């Protein structure tokens, strides 16, 4: 879109643009050289390497889950640009509410790989103390908020954080990631509407990857574009090619500028595809065709970026091999390390329900200790996975 800096008041309601924002086309042509030049090519190389590593992590973790070494896993294969792009486009002070498919937003900001894997295993070093399923981590130091299973709940919460930023005038923006399936929940509606009324600096990033588990887009909604809903809230709307890293960065930058300048929220719809199964509990063969999957693999965000980097001598097959090995070794080492660590102490079960244990919770903690001491518990109190 032209100039996001004109106050929305100036030209009536904010623009809603549905032809996909595109910078580096699938065929390799650059639509917006100016924007491409504005980003250090080395950064793109680093992003490519990080996305490649993510793909390797996902690949290995799925295998490990099949081997029974993880209880559950969920990959973002094919959607990497929708996590690494926004993470790069935003500032560290900006808050992020990921769904369960964007580990990249925290890893890019320096969330330690080991900590991430400790969460996958749920050991004593898991930041959430083994309380949630794998892929439901928390990264306070990175301003990434606790991941929740119930989908959509984070959307109004993101609007609330953005309101706080506006009230304090500290210049931050808050972004929430969710899938197109999630956009059917009532929380999507209330979150975007509140953000609209408040002109809160929020970014609602909808990853439209075509499926909600087995449910295809056409059974999720009859609107051709989720982004059209921006009309209903008086906020900015922008469709973007979600497999075009440059385009995703640009869309998020524009939305962040828009918010920081006081014009309010933006709904971004990133068109992409869930190349992976929904999770390790899912088998897509039951509901979609091989052809469809192959077609999208040809639009792969990594494959699209690589020729551009190679043309600039920033990447080549050796780099690819090396980076792949580094990532593979790193994740497997982290998993081995994580598996060595014991469970969280059983007493942690009773912490953090409240700031302090209530008498009832303390009594239950004491009873559990007595139960363990009695030796009659039908399980061992600790031990690694």
């Amino acid at each position, binding site marked *: 879109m032209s100039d996001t800096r004109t106050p929305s008041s100036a030209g009536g309601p904010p623009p809603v643009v549905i032809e996909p924002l595109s910078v580096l086309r699938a065929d390799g042509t650059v639509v917006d050289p100016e924007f491409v030049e504005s980003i250090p090519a080395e950064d793109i190389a680093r992003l490519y390497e990080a996305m490649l590593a993510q793909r390797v992590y996902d690949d290995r973790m799925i295998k490990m889950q099949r081997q029974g070494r993880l209880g559950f896993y969920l990959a973002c294969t094919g959607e990497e640009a929708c996590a690494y792009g926004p993470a790069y486009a935003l500032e560290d002070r900006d*808050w992020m509410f990921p769904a369960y498919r964007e580990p990249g937003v925290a890893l890019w900001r320096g969330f330690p790989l080991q900590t991430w894997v400790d969460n996958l295993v749920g050991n004593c070093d*898991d*930041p*959430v*103390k083994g*309380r*949630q399923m794998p892929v*439901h981590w*928390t990264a*306070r130091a990175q301003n990434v*908020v*606790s991941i*929740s299973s*119930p989908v959509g*709940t984070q*959307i*109004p*919460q*993101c*609007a*609330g*954080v*953005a*309101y*706080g*930023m506006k*009230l304090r005038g500290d210049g931050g923006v*808050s972004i929430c990631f969710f899938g197109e399936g999630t956009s059917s929940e*009532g*929380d999507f*509606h*209330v*979150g975007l*509407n*509140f953000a609209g*009324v408040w002109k809160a600096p929020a970014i609602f990033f909808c990853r439209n990857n075509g499926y909600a588990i087995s449910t295809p887009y056409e059974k999720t909604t009859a609107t051709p574009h989720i982004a059209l809903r921006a009309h209903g809230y008086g906020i900015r709307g922008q469709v973007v090619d979600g497999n075009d890293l440059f385009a995703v960065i640009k869309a998020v930058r524009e939305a962040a500028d828009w918010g920081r300048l006081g014009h309010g929220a933006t709904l971004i719809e990133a068109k992409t595809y869930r190349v992976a199964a929904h999770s390790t509990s899912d088998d897509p063969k039951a509901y979609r065709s091989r052809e469809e999957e192959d077609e999208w693999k040809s639009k792969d965000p990594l494959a699209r970026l690589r020729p551009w980097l190679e043309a600039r001598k920033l990447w080549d097959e050796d780099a690819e091999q090396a980076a792949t090995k580094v990532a593979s070794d790193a994740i497997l080492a982290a998993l081995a390390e994580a598996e060595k660590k014991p469970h969280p102490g059983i007493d942690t079960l009773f*912490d*953090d*329900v*409240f*700031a302090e244990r*209530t*008498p*009832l919770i303390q009594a239950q903690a004491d009873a559990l200790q007595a139960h363990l001491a009695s030796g009659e518990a039908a399980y061992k109190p600790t031990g690694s996975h």
Partner: protein
Amino acid sequence: MPAMNIIQAVNDALDLAMAADPNVVVLGEDVGKFGGVFRATVGLQEKYGEDRVIDTPLAEAGIIGTAIGMGLYGLRPVAEIQFSDFIFPAYDQIVNELAKYRYRSGGEYPCPMVIRTPFGGGIRGGHYHSQSPEATFAHHAGLVCVAPSNPYDAKGLLLAALESEDPVMVFEPKRIYRGPAHGTNWNSHPKGNVPEGHYTVPIGKAEIARPLSGKGIPVTLITYGAMVETCREAAQKAAEEGIDVELIDLRSLVPYDLPAIVESVTRTGRAVVANEAPQTCGFAGEIVALIMEHCFDWLEAPPLRVTGYDTPFPYTLEYAYLPDTGRLLTALRKVARYA
């Protein structure tokens, strides 16, 4: 000390908190310009501005969902839900999100905030302006739940809630907002005298609203919210029949004051527990179960419940639905004369 009703006490507490802490924001339907349908937030918007006293769109999930975001970010939101009957669109945000944030984030993302909502019947509100849903929140770990029964506690508990590190739900007894009984006001009532300035009522502590006189068969009567005044009336009538009632006002439901309950019931050996909500899985049932587990050997009679019926809340026949002094007396007699 100035005489205040519960609405004024709530308003005073909010005013003090907003003056003391710029992070405190009030949000809800019609709370700003209008001052709330029960007028609890009157004057606050003029004083603290539209940015801190927010008239929200009509969406409870949005009110609580955005308040959670504000709380995570470091503000101190006080969300008003116009009637507790309308809190259910926000039930998921409250029980799945707010209640679990500190726990599921390993302590990294606590979310202290306050939810105020009027509950209970007696204002001819029918199905949807009369419900008492407190038990359905107390059941989900992670929510502090309090229910004041008078102006003094309303102010003190709200100020305590605003200082708590946990999410606190304040169930306000709307039937007695303006007076301890229909047609009366709080002036005459000792708890109508509300100190100016800051003070708190400790969360988790019950209070003996009426001590034993020493004359008659002792019975512990336990309740909270608007039922406290109905129970007080029943206690007075019971006295004439030689039944000596110790009335306990729980004030806090989560955490509840087990020592106070056990201390009293082990002394009296007899207990009646009352709440307005339906019987099945109501809070009174929880108290009876606790008495059972902790006072069995001291019991002279089975603790009885006096509750609303297991039907939706009616309109015309509201008077017959609400536990009245007569039903309380019947229960008090049963336990007092049990043999």
